[in-house]
């Protein structure tokens, strides 16, 4: 056996697995993530799917990829540029190449570079055979062939499964390269196939090991790498995607409130998975309702809230538009409903699988009349859990709907999540009135502190009352067109939202408490902004970062913080929507850094904007 090359310790590495959508790249990436976290690395992942269910094999449109950053410290993004690319076919090479830095390592499955595949990828010549890849370290491996050898003797293996295991060969090879343990994947294989299909299990196992051993024996690599262990607070961890985390957060909130969770949904990318995660949870008293459309999902949620459930819905941009009218009814009837908008690139159908933050102003203003509601936005996949609980807390407190702005990036990417003890989660129980006071019940008599109206549940004797979408007399809730009643109710509906500022956390400043430049962000751009700011700080620049999880109301110290910096830069995956709100509200010269390309920010893009800012001010 040849001597294994030296193992070099590194802080971080970005790997991208890319292949045809039939090549199992999502599974490969997911297993790699698992092995990494089990070996105590920190990770951040970004899956990329083709828009089509099954795009024609071998084409550029059919490429499926999974990018992951593995590091020894708190990392925040899946990385700007892959250090290592595993390319299972020509199309995936072609699609990924523009993302790679010079000198990147490329492991290619040479067997897939057939004339037919090259043509489908639009290559006129085989890039492995001209010098177009000379700036990279290309490691050509005949993966298909080697893998066939490895699994050929597995008894009872259907021949059509043989090539389906080749991703495990590649995975094994990469495990070797990064000195990662095979065990988590071996266990997973056993759990998944062991009983149902021992031949497939055996084949996958052999493929994995063959890949690993191939690394060890083939002397193709000059170096191996090991990422140091990350420092995690003690606890039990799992990986979690944003959509999973929202689902769990809602279930947890329902339990903490002692309520049935009603989740209404109409499938839509990239929100559907929330429904898929919740539907199996019937034993948690989860009622999922796949409605005929988004209007019905929202209407049913309003009904469920009226009847006393924890009511939530989830959708994406086009569905938000359809929900707007019933959502406005919830504003007017003053009922708590959590409305999750997993934003995607618009306008119209746009690019359903691509990320964008284009719905912020819609969340604020996308309803007729003066219709204030609560708006929150998680910053990372794991935070989707906490913010779901926060959304419920605020909705119950103010008796008002919440728009929860997730996005396609948060929804699908994953990070380690320290599993909380359910006991430590806040209680969310509601004091529903149990009977009339002084012989009567006033459904719009507001709590003097929160301005919330009482949440009286149908079925309670003596509290029979009527609500609706027409304007009301204060306290009684009787229909009224009186100018002063309208004026007062409009203001009270606004004020009860504004008062929540007293019970939400102030913004934390990352960096100097005052100084030159403040970056303000919200939602999934958190990681890229934080990383860029960190780099700029490392260069000695006076730069700070504030990230908003609460958008309506804004945290109460926001204005004061904004005024402490000479400049404000607002990176957003839109044309400057938060920037516009800050400018209008505080008359500060917030400058927008827009990106509307269906992709997350790269750290470097934000860093470059910071540098520019200093250059212009210099």
């Amino acid at each position, binding site marked *: 056996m040849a001597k294994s090359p030296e193992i070099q310790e590194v802080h971080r590495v970005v790997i991208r697995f890319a292949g045809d959508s039939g090549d199992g790249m999502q599974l490969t990436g997911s297993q790699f993530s698992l092995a990494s*976290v*089990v070996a*105590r690395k920190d990770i951040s992942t970004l899956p990329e799917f083709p828009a089509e269910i099954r795009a024609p094999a071998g084409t550029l449109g059919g490429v499926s990829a999974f990018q992951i950053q593995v590091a020894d410290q708190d990392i925040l993004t899946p990385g700007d540029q892959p250090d290592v690319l595993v390319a299972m076919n020509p199309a995936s090479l072609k699609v990924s190449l523009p993302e790679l830095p010079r000198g990147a390592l490329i492991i290619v499955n040479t067997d897939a570079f057939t004339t037919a595949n090259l043509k489908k990828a639009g290559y006129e010549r085989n890039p492995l055979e001209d010098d177009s890849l000379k700036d990279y370290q290309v490691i050509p491996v005949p993966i298909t062939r080697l893998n066939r050898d490895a699994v050929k003797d597995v008894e009872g293996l259907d021949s059509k499964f043989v090539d389906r295991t080749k991703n495990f060969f590649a995975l094994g090879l990469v495990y070797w390269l990064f000195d990662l343990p095979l065990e988590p994947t071996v266990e*997973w294989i056993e759990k998944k196939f062991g009983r149902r299909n021992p031949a497939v299990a055996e084949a996958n196992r052999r493929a994995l090991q063959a890949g690993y051993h191939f690394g060890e024996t083939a002397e193709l690599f000059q170096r191996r790498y090991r990422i140091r262990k990350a420092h*995690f*607070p*003690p*606890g*039990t*961890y*799992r*990986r979690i995607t944003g959509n999973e985390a929202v689902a*769990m957060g809602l*279930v*947890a909130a329902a*339990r903490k409130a002692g309520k049935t969770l*009603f989740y209404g949904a109409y499938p839509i990318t990239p929100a559907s998975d929330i429904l898929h995660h919740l539907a199996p949870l*019937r*034993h*948690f*008293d989860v*009622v999922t*309702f796949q*409605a*005929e*459309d988004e*209007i*019905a*999902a929202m*209407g049913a*949620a*309003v*009904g*469920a809230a*009226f*009847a*006393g*459930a924890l*009511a939530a819905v989830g959708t994406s941009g086009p569905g938000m538009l359809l929900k707007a*009218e*019933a959502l406005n*009814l919830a504003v007017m009837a003053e009922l708590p409903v959590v409305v999750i908008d997993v934003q995607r690139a618009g306008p119209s159908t746009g690019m359903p699988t691509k990320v964008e933050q284009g719905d912020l102003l819609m969340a604020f203003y996308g309803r007729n009349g003066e219709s204030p509601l609560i708006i929150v936005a998680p910053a990372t996949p794991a935070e989707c859990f906490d913010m779901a609980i926060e959304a419920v807390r605020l909705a119950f407190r103010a008796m008002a709907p919440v728009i929860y702005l997730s996005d396609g990036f948060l929804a699908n990417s994953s990070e380690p999540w320290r*599993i909380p*003890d*359910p006991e430590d*989660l806040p209680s969310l129980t509601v004091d529903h009135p149990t009977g009339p006071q002084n012989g009567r019940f006033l459904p719009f008599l507001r709590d003097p502190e929160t301005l919330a109206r009482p949440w009286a*549940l*149908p*079925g*309670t*004797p003596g*509290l*029979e*009352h*009527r*609500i*609706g*979408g*027409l304007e009301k007399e204060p306290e009684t809730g009787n*229909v009224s067109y009186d100018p002063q009643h309208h004026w007062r109710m409009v203001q009270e509906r606004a004020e009860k939202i504004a008062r929540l500022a007293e019970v939400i956390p102030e913004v934390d400043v990352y960096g100097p408490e005052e100084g030159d430049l403040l970056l303000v962000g919200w939602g999934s751009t958190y990681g890229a902004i934080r990383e860029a700011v960190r780099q700029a700080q490392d260069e000695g620049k006076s730069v700070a970062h504030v990230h908003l999880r609460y958008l309506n109301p804004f945290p109460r110290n926001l204005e004061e913080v904004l005024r402490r910096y000479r400049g404000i830069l607002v990176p957003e995956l839109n044309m400057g929507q938060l920037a516009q709100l800050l400018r209008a509200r505080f008359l500060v010269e917030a400058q927008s850094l827009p990106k509307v390309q269906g992709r997350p920010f790269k750290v470097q893009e934000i860093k470059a904007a910071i540098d520019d800012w200093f250059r212009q001010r210099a």
Partner: protein
Amino acid sequence: MAMPTVTLTRKDFASDQTVRWCPGCGDYAILATVQKTFARFGWPREKFVIISGIGCSSRFPYYMNVYGFHTIHGRAPTVATGVKLANPDLSVWVVTGDGDGLSIGGNHLLHAARRNIDINVLLFNNAIYGLTKGQLSPTSPEGMRTKSSPYGSVEPPVNPIALMLASGATFVARTVDVFQSHIGDTLYQAGMHKGFAFIEILQNCVIFNHGMWFPYTERERRHDHIVYLEAGKPMLFGKNHERGLVFRDGHFYPVVLGEEYTEADVAVHDPSSLTQAFALAQLRDPLPVGVFYQVRHPAYEEAMYHQIEEVKKQKGGPGHLSDLFHSGDTWVVA
């Protein structure tokens, strides 16, 4: 639903709000009957919820001293679905109009019917948009002149009964605002029916479509132009039951009894036959009223809560958050 029972009267179900329909509007009679019928169920007031959309008819909840929700145009069935799913113990009623329920809200009615959720839908059909002051409705007849069809409508109307039958409703009936005891009995049957119940109520709008149904409903015309459907009874009509419906080739034909036809030829109403109910729904003269169709299927919320119980059994009891959080691959950092 094991409802507690109480003794209440019509008055207990009247709210303190002034009723604001036009004098003479057919809605008054329906309101009175609903109040009476609710008392007849013997269920406590707090168990009733009435959900409406938007329209003259949809102001209904304000006049009932039960839980009520005046929602938005066409969406009452969706809100009612949410109420029933959140609390299956409530008796949930929807009040809607021909525009609210069949124009903007047609799809929700269709899907609520299909799912067989246990709600009772009262559709006040005045063949006009009342609240918006007199435009065409989907039940307005072809040729009708309205503000929006000044030269006469060019749209064939929808057949609400046929539509609900095709949608899968398990209880489908028709009654008339002025047929006091008939409307009461029909509503009572609907309320006792487990599953989706649809009742079309022909209603007179005195302002914008006065007399729409008079050809059938005026006292002196009823005998010959209305046929009362009763399960297991021959479908006879006419002052002295001298007419009847015969069923041939899948169609119902009115005949005069005598030489050619006798009572033995008259079809017997079978509310369990979907296709016969559909054939009856095509009949315009005489116009059938009563229960066209009724069958028992599990209601949507029954099936949903049944599933919840089953899954709990399968999983050995209610779920624990901690198990949920720990599902999937975990690792421990000490």
